[in-house]
């Protein structure tokens, strides 16, 4: 039936400008229920990739398909999530659905078009059920010195998908604004004991485990 869809999970090479413009004008582009506009996101991808230079290690830990959570540290601002998105794209060719779309009229619409989702537990769970790769930044650490806690609202969603820790470090001058970033992915975070999906206690233990995993990646040489 539908012949004009673009992949909502995988990034593809942007179309020729004329074809993209025709598709845009005729409304023949996909939108997902969270608001992602893959055509617009694919058009912006080269711009982000040029602006944020990234060195990647441990890219093999990013799942090539299926739902997963990538948990990372975050400083003040949007630099770390942007660097993480570029790193995930290079490592797996997939889109990262970053949690934390602001609830503001225009900024909220723009960030959702590019793939952000809200930081509520139901939305994170829905995105994972739909098979997306979800990026959850831990609470901001203002001086970029460590890993904060996971937002409480999303903690319960973490028990339903594999969790991959990631450390995002600035290796350029002025904290990464000029220069490049280094993104290190670690192996999957697991709990030693069995647990049930949506178990609040398991969620709390996962929160601790992934903060420790991200902190260990940040401390590694």
């Amino acid at each position, binding site marked *: 039936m539908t012949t004009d*869809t673009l992949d909502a999970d995988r990034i593809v090479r942007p179309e020729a400008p004329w074809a993209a413009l025709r598709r845009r004008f005729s409304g023949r582009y*996909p939108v997902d229920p969270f608001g992602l506009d893959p055509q617009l996101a694919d058009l912006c991808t080269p711009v982000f990739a040029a602006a944020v230079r990234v060195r990647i290690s441990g890219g093999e830990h990013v799942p090539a398909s299926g739902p997963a959570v990538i948990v990372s540290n975050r400083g003040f601002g949007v630099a770390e999530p942007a660097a993480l998105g570029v790193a995930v794209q290079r490592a797996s060719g997939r889109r990262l659905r970053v949690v934390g779309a602001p609830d503001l009229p225009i900024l909220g619409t723009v960030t959702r078009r590019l793939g952000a989702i809200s930081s509520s537990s*139901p939305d994170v769970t829905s995105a994972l059920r739909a098979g997306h790769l979800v990026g959850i930044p831990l609470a901001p650490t203002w001086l970029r010195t460590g890993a904060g806690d996971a937002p409480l609202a999303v903690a319960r969603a973490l028990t339903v998908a594999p969790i991959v820790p990631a450390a995002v470090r600035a290796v350029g001058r002025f904290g990464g604004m000029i220069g490049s970033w280094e993104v290190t992915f670690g192996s999957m975070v697991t709990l030693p004991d069995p647990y049930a999906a949506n178990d609040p206690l398991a969620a709390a233990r996962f929160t601790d485990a992934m903060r420790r995993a991200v902190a260990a990646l940040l401390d590694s040489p």
Partner: protein
Amino acid sequence: MNARVLVTGMGGELGTRVAQLIEAREWAGDVVGVDFVPPRRRLRRAEFRRIDPRDRDRLAAFVEEYAPNIVAHFGVYEPASRMTPASARERTEACTAATLSAAASTGVLEYVVLRSGLEVYGPPTARVSVPDEDAVPAPTTAYGRSLLAVEAAAKGVALRCGVPVGALRYAPVMGSHVPSPLGRMLRLPVVPVSAVSDPPFSVLHPDDAAIAMVTAIERRLDGPCNVVGGGAATPWQAARLGGRVPLPVAPGLWGLVGRASEVAGAALAPHVVDLIRHGCTGDGSRAREELGLGDLTSTQDVLRELFDWADVVAIARAGEQAA
């Protein structure tokens, strides 16, 4: 099984399609429908009784006498679809109260499935934009509140009779032959859209809605279940898909636009304005897992079908063209 099935709202497009599907099933014994208008397609063995839901006593007496085992409750009327919002609310309340209480009193009721909608969740918020069935309903429109009241009435029957009750929370059902205020608005030459946002919404094909209800009966679905077409579209995009001109509307001007739209032949119900301004989607994973509805028609295909439907041509003009 030879179950006695009652289909309320059989005169609507969805009610008729559901009755057609049910009468083809082996497990269905007698199939009887009620509504205030006759069915819209040929039915082979289902019977129809023309009863206006506002005539509660007559409707309740008929249901008691028929004593159904299964009730497929489609007597839930959308405002500005085939009647005014006030009339839709009155008929929905009357049909729900008379049918469910009479069916519960017979002692042979085994299952109830009803039509509800994503409108029960209210507009998407900063917290939840794609609600699943666990999200707390917070309707902000009369239609959403009406649907929630129908669900509550059915839950009361479930408690009283100890029978399972399934509530199918449909995305707006839209198709070329289904009376829908959203469909009518999108087919206007100029489509009003929000000037400050372009939120995603999902819709559902009428065939998928009918299949979902019959599958819910067969699998005895219990509790609410979102049924949502794949993907989404935005109002600006939907207007362009149909080759229409999007008209950006500032937040304070929707009342004025609603009156103009009504004059143009497409009355704008508050829940449609809500959808255009704030979006309306839901997580359909329960329907995929429990009802096996993994291949529903996508939102954009439903929109394409809506726009492929030929425009209305005045008889005089059609005659001129033929000559």
